[in-house]
């Protein structure tokens, strides 16, 4: 037995790099999918049958802006118009909130920029009573469920009218009435919690499915494995989504995994797995509707990689110019989700530039009115805040003696 170890011929371990850095020219040569690529599948298919769907990309909106292929959901024009409106509303809302953040009226903000289609199309494909269990990049689901913008803004400000009483950072929405479960900062924790939610629905015999999302970066957490695996074992009615926007703050998805993609991760768990164009409203709607039908019929979970590109900064604290080319998102072959749906509507003849501008104008006014109302209840720079007593309530169902003593000590 000796402790001497010979020197290796091999190089040290590999440290992957991002495909491009500030100053580089972004390019996405792997993008070569069309709406005709992939067949529709029966909702009771098994995971092996989805092999090509996990490695390909479900698209519906072609490069010519027309809807085609077997996955075309063929939804009515009103629903599509509504989808466009929700997406526009989210983008305009986000922009306004960023401005409020820059002026100190909010502490922090995170936009869904470039990813507006995801939560909106997917939530629209569900029933109103289905459970939405989001990360911070899916606030858009609330518009679909009809949440009042003032209420959302009150939360982001953390003012007296915030339904979570100023306890959480902005964008950590909670809305039980809308079956929208509270967003938590530690990334990924919701993934297997959502499986538990879905199991409870099934246990109670309710026709209620659950959808949840996490990011490409977050898929490295143990929670991702727990979610896939518990869903694999118990087969509850759930849709498990990985939003691959190719960045986790500054870290490129090349460092999230060395594998070929995220969708295929579901296959060895025996879960049908799909990759979908995350900037294609119709494709997102279609696969989600399919997965809902599957879950509702008792065939169990579906795993979806939503393939997109984070168009903006990670958050108001982030400066992406330090780690990626400026405006790299403009080179993304998937384009912009709002532009693509709008162009489709125009190409199909049920939308015009004029109508579009009028809609933008109307939403803008609504958002302005909402923020004026919300800030009238207080903003972070000027208050008023929720009273300090809110620190002590709802730690437990009732306030225990030690927390009560502390509340008295604070004397507020």
């Amino acid at each position, binding site marked *: 037995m000796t402790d001497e170890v010979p020197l290796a011929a091999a190089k040290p371990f590999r440290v992957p790099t991002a495909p491009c850095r500030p100053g580089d020219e972004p390019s996405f040569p792997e993008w070569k999918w069309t709406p005709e690529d992939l067949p529709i599948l029966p909702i009771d298919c098994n995971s092996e049958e989805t092999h090509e769907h996990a490695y390909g990309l479900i698209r519906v909106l072609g490069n010519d802006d027309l809807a085609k292929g077997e996955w075309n959901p063929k939804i009515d024009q009103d629903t599509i118009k509504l989808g466009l409106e929700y997406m526009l509303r989210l983008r305009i809302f986000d922009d306004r909130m960023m401005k409020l953040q820059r002026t100190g009226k909010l502490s922090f903000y995170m936009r869904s920029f470039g990813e507006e289609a995801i939560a909106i199309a997917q939530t629209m494909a569900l029933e109103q009573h289905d*459970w939405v*269990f989001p990360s911070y990049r899916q606030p858009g689901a609330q518009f679909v469920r009809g949440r009042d913008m003032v209420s959302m803004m009150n939360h982001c400000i953390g003012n007296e009218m*915030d*339904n*979570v*009483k100023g*306890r*959480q950072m902005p964008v*950590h929405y*909670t*809305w*039980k009435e809308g079956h929208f*479960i*509270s967003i*938590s900062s*530690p990334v990924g*924790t919701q*993934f*297997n*919690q*959502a*499986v*538990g*939610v*879905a*199991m*409870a*629905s099934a*246990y*109670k015999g309710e026709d209620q499915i659950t959808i949840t999302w996490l990011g490409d970066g977050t898929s490295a957490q*143990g*929670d991702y*494995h*727990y*979610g896939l*695996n*518990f869903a694999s*074992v118990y087969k509850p009615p759930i849709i498990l989504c990985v939003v691959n926007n190719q960045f986790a703050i500054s870290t490129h998805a090349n460092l999230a995994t060395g594998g070929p993609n995220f969708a295929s991760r579901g296959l060895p768990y025996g879960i049908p797995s799909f990759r979908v164009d995350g900037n294609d409203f119709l494709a997102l709607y279609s696969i989600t509707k399919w997965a809902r039908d599957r879950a509702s019929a008792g065939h169990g979970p579906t795993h979806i990689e939503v393939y997109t590109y984070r168009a903006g900064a990670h958050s108001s604290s982030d400066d992406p110019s330090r780690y990626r080319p400026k405006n790299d998102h403009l080179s993304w072959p998937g384009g912009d989700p709002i532009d693509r749906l709008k162009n489709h509507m125009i190409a199909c003849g049920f939308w015009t530039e004029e109508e579009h501008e009028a809609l933008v104008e109307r939403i803008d006014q609504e958002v302005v009115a909402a923020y004026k109302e919300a800030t009238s209840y207080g903003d972070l720079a000027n208050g008023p805040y929720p009273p300090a007593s809110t620190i002590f*309530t*709802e*730690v*437990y*169902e009732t306030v*225990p*003696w*030690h*927390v009560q003593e502390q509340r008295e000590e604070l004397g507020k």
Partner: protein
Amino acid sequence: MVEMNMIEALRSALDDLMQRDPNVLTFGEDVGYFGGVFRITDGLQEKHGAHRVFDTPLAEGGIASMAMGMGLNGLRPVAEIQFADYIFPAYDQIVNEIAKVRHRSGGEFTTPVTFRTPAGGGIRGGHHHSQSPEAQFTHTPGLKVVYCSTPLNAKGLLTSSVECNDPVIFFEPKRCYNGPFYGDPHKLSTWKGHPDADVPEGEFRIPLEQANVVMEGTDCTVIAWGTMVHICQQAINDSGVSCDLIDLQTLVPWDRDTVVSSVKKTGRCVIVHEAPKTSGFGAEMSASIQERCFYHLESPITRVTGWDTPFPHTTEWDYIPSTERISKAIRGTQVD
């Protein structure tokens, strides 16, 4: 009343809860068909069905997060963690998620999960089948922490824990499953004939947040939980000092009135636990009692605890607080 050991008492609590509330489920590693490695859930799957009593994948983090989700959606899950030493992969889900969801959601969402887990030493389990990690949960607002010590309070406290709308970490002293332990590994006893082995059959509760005064005395207050309650009983007898022995039962929130009035009466206090001394829950008890009883104290509050070392295997009887160490500490409070 039926004579039960602690295993039977815990099983009886779960059985009763499941009978009364269809939203109560229980699961964990080997909990289903087999009935658990400590047999707590034996027979429950057959009785209540595989959708209410079932095995899980071997992933405590997954068990905790699934339980949280079920709790968010109206169920009342009871999750078994096979050994308390293995609760740490679930620590993030418990302290960052389960504990905080009521507060962070403005009360819109709650999750009344109960984690049952066998803790403590004395079964030659070495580093990783002997720990008592209660203190690591007492620092997290939003959690209640309960530690049973007898068949009677095992059933009564578990029932109250599961019915409680807050998440509860429920520790079971595995050394006492089959009998109380008085500190001598060569003299093991069963629960047979012990007064606290008489357990009501159906619905039965002991309220949380209440301590149990096991012995009453005048000259020292001894505070303990789990296995240590029995060892302290023996040590108090050995010491010849007249003591209040308080079984804390609920650690968070603990029973201020019982503890404070006892220490004010006796003027002396010894706190005993198996976990390491540094930042054990004895530290909190000592600090709090000192703050509240300073002018009544006749001698320093003393802690008798496990050492600040990992839990050893062959030498475990030199690790676990012995009757000698405890009675010496009790006598030590009497000289000033």
